[in-house]
């Protein structure tokens, strides 16, 4: 299951559960006795909830932080480096070849060195199924290095994910780029 599907499923489960619990609380107020006691030992319950919720957060943090992009592939060398200069409203991409299109090898680590010539843009890479796989910001005056391994061959699209002006997305087209994974 890809990341997007997982988070949506997780969210929906939580949203439904929270709604149900809310409804249960509401119902309890309709059927309570006049001098209903409500929840006993609330302070103790707070403490247990603190332990539970704090524990969940700590586990989530320890599992997810190592997967942050800042640590990914930092100990290996890229097979290919592609330079990207974002501008209103195109991505100028170049590698060491003179080819008209950018090709990167499948299954090997590739690095994009991303900057901007004008405003901050977003550099978001979409796989052939139009799923967002990875991204970074293209900020003027800084070069961000995005490393990834593309397993699936095909045409990958780049879309701008940071609002950058009137050409960001229009009735007739949006700011985009592409490269081929072979």
């Amino acid at each position, binding site marked *: 299951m890809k990341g997007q599907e997982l988070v949506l499923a997780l969210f929906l489960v939580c949203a439904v559960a929270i709604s149900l619990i809310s409804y249960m609380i509401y119902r309890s107020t309709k059927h309570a006795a006049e001098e209903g006691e409500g929840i006993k030992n609330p302070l103790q319950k707070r403490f247990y909830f603190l332990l539970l919720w704090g524990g969940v957060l700590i586990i989530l943090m320890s599992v997810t932080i190592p997967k942050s*992009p*800042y640590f990914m*592939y*930092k*100990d290996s*060398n890229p097979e290919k*480096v592609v*330079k990207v*200069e974002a501008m209103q409203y195109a991505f100028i991409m170049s590698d*060491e070849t003179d080819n008209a299109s950018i090709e990167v090898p499948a299954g090997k680590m590739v690095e994009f*060195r991303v*900057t901007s*010539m*004008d405003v901050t843009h977003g550099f978001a890479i979409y796989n052939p199924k139009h799923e967002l796989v990875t991204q970074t910001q293209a900020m*003027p*005056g*800084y*070069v*961000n*290095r995005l*490393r990834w391994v593309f397993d699936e061959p095909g045409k990958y699209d780049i879309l701008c994910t940071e609002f950058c002006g009137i050409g960001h997305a229009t009735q007739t087209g949006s700011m985009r780029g592409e490269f081929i994974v072979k």
Partner: protein
Amino acid sequence: MFAQTQEYSLAEEDKLFTKVENVQILTTTGDNIKLSALYEREPVILALIFTRCTGVCSPLIRNLQDNLARLRPKEQFKILVVSFDSADKPTDMENYQKMLNVYADNKWIFGVTENILDLTGSVGFYPQWDSVSRQFEHDALLVGINGNGYIVKKLLGIRNDNSLNGLIKAISNEFVISYPLPRKNALFTCFTYDPITGERKLSLGLLILLIPAVGTIILLFLISRRKKGNTAL
């Protein structure tokens, strides 16, 4: 009335991840070797100077020497100082090395090459001869070459230890996820990045981020009153 965009230089991005030309180097110690013989053993920081230079060449080397002494990097690498002036001979380079007193740790190699244009072209360095001043007009440039002969980082101008650290990490294939580009005019930045003075100081930009917090704390103390009486907290 409107400010123009900042001018960021992309000159440091030119030639990145291309291979340096594998030229023959004649060193001051009499070795006649290919550049690859050096970088395959250890990564190389290439500095391009000429001995008649009355401009940035000596400051470049001196600054590099001072900053390395301060940084004391644990990574292994060599600094190769090559002249791009066909008039320079190994003896000129030896005298230059003596003049600057650069002998630390056997890290430094001084030399000349007959394939000047091949070398300078491959690193994107284009000095211009001025017949009036009888000097080359050129940038101060350090080129980081990794163990496979790839140009992994370039630094233009006289740089401070933050930037040199980045250069050393790059040639040692250590990953630095992001870095600033040289620019003009920005007074308040998060990172100190003054290529001219190479000064290292706490950036004003970081202090600016703290102004609202400091301002609020001061305001609270000005408008609140302390607890009166002797009731314990």
